[in-house]
């Protein structure tokens, strides 16, 4: 993907935010996250736009609206002569106490992601998934619980959910999560006591919860923990064979993306008559939209990987 003269960035994940643009418009939190990840000079100029504030560029009015995906994530609303188009970026419609809740923005054209755009993806209640984790921990107190979760958003959400279930022991985090966890804490999201596992002995981790990036689960890093239960927080964990193949013993179906029901409900709620589907399993969602009388097309984007979390 080529650097651009003007980039509107929906959120700080690497496949949505790239360095090297001239001018970046994003929410204040997203700008802060990009700077911490890519450095202060990753774009020439930054322009922070709060949720709901309109900005005019020539004849087009731009505004950002909460997407409920990760801290700072936004949908982009473009208005031109009364025609409203929304680009969702990544989103989820269910509540998440680590970021502003998703807002339905009425529009004519709705450009939606479709990461989990198949009806087999019906994400369970996240709190129940955490209860599963805590129950397993009680049943196997001699093992460490190693949770794979992406550094921006998922890790903090998982930690916050664990806290909300009343777990108050220190939680150990991989070094790669430190910066962003600190940022979340600065923004008033209380994650409780977080510690680094460095320098501790194997015996210090019996029954402890450790959070690290998915890539570290099978790495040398994980060898320091006693007989760890490998857990992985992701919407993909819905598929048992997939969990099994990736060596996950405790799949936690916790996703930052809308599941099938959220996608279909949101599409209806926006009132849009035209739907463009991108980023994931376009076929099924396009088929669904057409079956309820909406005009729908798949939209293939430049520079996209097939899959992300």
């Amino acid at each position, binding site marked *: 993907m080529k650097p651009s003269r003007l980039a509107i960035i929906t959120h700080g994940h690497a496949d949505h935010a790239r360095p090297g643009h001239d001018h970046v418009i994003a929410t204040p939190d997203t700008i802060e996250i990009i700077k911490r990840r890519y450095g202060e000079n990753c774009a020439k100029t930054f322009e922070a736009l709060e949720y709901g504030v309109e900005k005019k560029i020539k004849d087009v009015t731009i505004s950002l609206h909460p997407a409920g995906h990760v801290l700072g994530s936004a949908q982009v609303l473009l208005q031109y002569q009364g025609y409203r188009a929304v680009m969702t970026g990544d989103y989820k419609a269910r509540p998440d106490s680590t970021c502003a809740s998703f807002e339905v923005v009425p529009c004519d054209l709705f450009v939606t992601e479709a990461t989990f755009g*198949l*009806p*087999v*993806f*019906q994400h*369970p209640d996240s709190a129940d998934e955490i209860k599963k984790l805590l129950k397993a921990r009680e*049943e196997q107190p001699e093992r460490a619980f190693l949770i794979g979760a992406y550094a921006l958003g998922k890790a903090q959400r998982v930690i916050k959910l664990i806290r909300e279930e009343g777990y108050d022991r220190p939680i150990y985090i991989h070094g790669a999560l430190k910066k962003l966890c600190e940022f979340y804490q600065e923004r008033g999201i209380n994650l409780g006591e977080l510690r680094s596992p460095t320098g501790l002995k194997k015996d210090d981790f019996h029954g402890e919860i450790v959070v690290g990036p998915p890539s570290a689960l099978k790495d040398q890093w994980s060898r320091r923990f006693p007989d760890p239960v490998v857990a992985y927080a992701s919407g993909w964990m*819905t*598929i*048992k*064979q997939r*969990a*099994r193949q990736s*060596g*996950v*013993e*405790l*799949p936690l179906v916790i996703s930052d993306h809308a599941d099938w029901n959220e996608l279909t409900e949101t599409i209806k709620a926006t009132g849009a008559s035209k739907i463009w589907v991108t980023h994931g*399993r376009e*076929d*099924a969602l396009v*088929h*669904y939209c057409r*079956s309820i009388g909406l005009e729908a097309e798949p939209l293939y984007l430049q520079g996209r990987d097939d899959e992300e979390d």
Partner: protein
Amino acid sequence: MKAFAELLEQLILTSSRNKKVDYLAQYFAKTPDPDRGLALAAITRDLSLRHVKSSFVKQNVLERVDPQLFALSYDYVGDLGETVALIWPETESGELPSVKDFIAFLEDTPKAELPALFSDLMDLATPNERWAMIKMITGGLRVGVSARLAKTALAKYGNVELQEIEEIWHGLTIPYLKLFAWLDGKTDKPQIKHTETFHPLMLSNPVDEIKDFEKLSEADFAAEWKWDGIRVQLVFNEDTQRMFSRTGDDISHTFPDLTESLNGAAVLDGELLVGKDMEPLPFNNLQQRLNRKTIVKKHLKDYPAFVRVYDILFDGEEDLRTLPWQERRARLESWMESHDNKRLSLSELIPFKSWEELKKIREKGAEEQGHEGIMLKRKTSVYEPGRPKGPWYKWKRDARLVDAVLMYAQRGHGKRSSFYSDYTFGVWKGNEIVPIGKAYFGFTDQELKQLDKWVRANTIQRFGPVREVKKELVFEVAFDSAHVSPRHKSGIALRFPRINRIRWDKPAQEAETLDGMQFFVEGQSDS
């Protein structure tokens, strides 16, 4: 059902054997009777349910889900049961039935009401519970637990030796109430009559002519023919008469002519054969009687079953397994003398003085009577289940070799799914080549790569996963024996064919002819 579904998920997501054992033991501890016993039987696949077909499940889901969305989902997930479990659109709150009630519902509900029952159950369940139920009713419960692993878990749960479980296992009945009562310390070990249950077999190792005979003394061993049938255990008393295969499958009902003949009480070890007047016919005559649900009257007449008996494990309830072979043999001979039976005959001993002499006997036996080889049993050996090294040896006759031409190649499975690794080969019949067998081993990984490449480069036709190739490549095929087979175009079937060598050098014209093959074919007059 909830706890059972949870257990299945744990088992499928754990690769560690020890952890599977732990999960099973935990489940036995927290689950009441008879659910735990039924679950155990479901996992070891001893539970036979009235299964519904997966098409029934699919039909039910398609009444609720757009067919195209279902097809896209199935395509992505890859497993029908899991797709249905995840895509099921309705949920209701309520209690799932216990495993016992679930099975009872399934057995007792009239066919017409099954769809309604199925959808009620699906509505009440979580995706994981739906998956467990679908797997159970379609009979596809594969969670990586062998019967042995399940028994190990039982032993751990009850803090008893695995051997103790093995001893009584085949005498137990689902849902294993007596077993669990014993493991819970509430009662004594269930008393199983030895003459009513299968006992794990003692097996032999192949002899290495070069290394082993140097160390072995002729005087320590007894020799018998290696009979070309199937190994069986006869377990019988006044009340029950049963015959088990070497893995403990009850095959009594397939051979009523034999089991009905049994009188007295004993556990005998021997070889099941077919033939009139206890003269064995070739293996493929026996094979026609195996794995049949219904018994063909003509088979009973043409291929009567009998057993060549070579060992006795129990005389009545008396355990003879700890006696040396020599003493067991004496007991067996006297037992046979006192129990006249037209379906049992003693496996004769072959007298010999030296290995050299025995080798000649073996070769002569193979040539003249088609014997598969010789068994060597140490005279002092106790009857030890498993395959202990040292007491028993099998000494097979040399393989037969034939040069055959590669005709078709098929893709393999698993690790070999990207390779053409299953080969059909044939011999000349006039100007055409007729297939005589199929083999998929005997070559190295390196050779497999070369063969795969050759197949791809020399394909003349494709039929799904099968390629027909130019009739140019010769295999030297080794096999144990050849038999008449009306099912094959060539009229010949090979036993244990394998690729001995790839004859890259040999022109196909020089391969064997069907006439030439007749030299190897046994039992021609009996077909």
